[in-house]
């Protein structure tokens, strides 16, 4: 089955139609999605800035990560749930919007970035926890994360316009 066939089917399900055609569900869910930005991206950029070495330099990296990441995860759960519902409301519109395709690709890339960080970079944090200069892999994860998240916000915004 082609992806487009699946999205067409999804588009015609009663749930999708209901989300689309009733006045309030979409705006309410979208509001959660926008406010969730603060708890998700708004918190994780501080971890990214610490990895790059630009903020909270007096704090060990492991402390910043362990204190802030749980909150960012909660924020991302909100974003994932609200985002999924928003997608279910108009799968065909999302599928045929270039901006949304970019957003989907960038979301996959951020997942890879997170996996890479926890699998290959963070395990030996004890060696550079309080280093004056962050190792290049940590900086790279930080920069990639920030660029991707701001790109995702831009693409998300333009999904509505295009």
């Amino acid at each position: 089955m082609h992806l487009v066939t699946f999205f067409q089917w999804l588009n015609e399900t009663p749930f999708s139609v209901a989300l689309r055609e009733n006045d309030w569900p979409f705006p309410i869910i979208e509001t959660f999605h926008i406010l969730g930005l603060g708890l998700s991206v708004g918190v994780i950029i501080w971890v990214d800035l610490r990895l790059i070495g630009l903020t909270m330099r007096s704090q060990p990296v492991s402390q910043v990560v362990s204190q802030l990441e749980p909150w960012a995860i909660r924020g991302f759960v909100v974003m994932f749930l609200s985002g999924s519902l928003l997608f279910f409301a108009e799968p065909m519109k999302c599928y045929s919007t270039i901006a949304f395709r970019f957003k989907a690709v960038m979301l996959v890339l951020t997942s890879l970035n997170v996996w890479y960080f926890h699998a290959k970079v963070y395990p030996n944090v004890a060696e550079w926890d309080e280093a004056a200069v962050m190792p290049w892999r940590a900086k790279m994860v930080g920069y990639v994360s920030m660029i991707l998240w701001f790109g995702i916000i831009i693409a998300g915004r333009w999904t509505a316009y295009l």
Partner: protein
Amino acid sequence: MDFLRILPRWFFPWCEKTAIGSIIQHSRWSFAIIETVHIMALAVLLGSFLIVDLRLLGYGMRRQSVAEVAKQFGPWSWRAFVVMVATGIPMYLSEAIKLSTSGPFFYKMAFLCLGVLFHLTVHRKATNSSVNVSTGLAKVAACLSLICWLAVALAGRAIAYL
């Protein structure tokens, strides 16, 4: 309640005739671009406020005192706020007439003023203590602060719908 009932009638067309107001009105993409920067600054601002307010409530960054957390995120909150005002004003100027009869916009500004006033008084006092434990006042300050800024964001979102 809206601004048309409070401010003189000539103010709104005057806003739209300003250089900035007219340029944005007549340019296809200016508004979208400015609004996107507004949203990115929102992520940074909400993130910083959330981290400080969560700390006031006793969650996250617990090894530092409230004052230390506030001191770290304060400057960034302020910068993000400046960006939001700097992007908000041009957007307002481009559609002042339409916003003059908008209830949500009025309440957004009302909560914004309330939030700023509250932030510069009670909230500042609550974050000044160098104690590691959160007090009753701190918790109230954190909750009220969060409610205020969430109300600003909600009202801002409602402008497009009501």
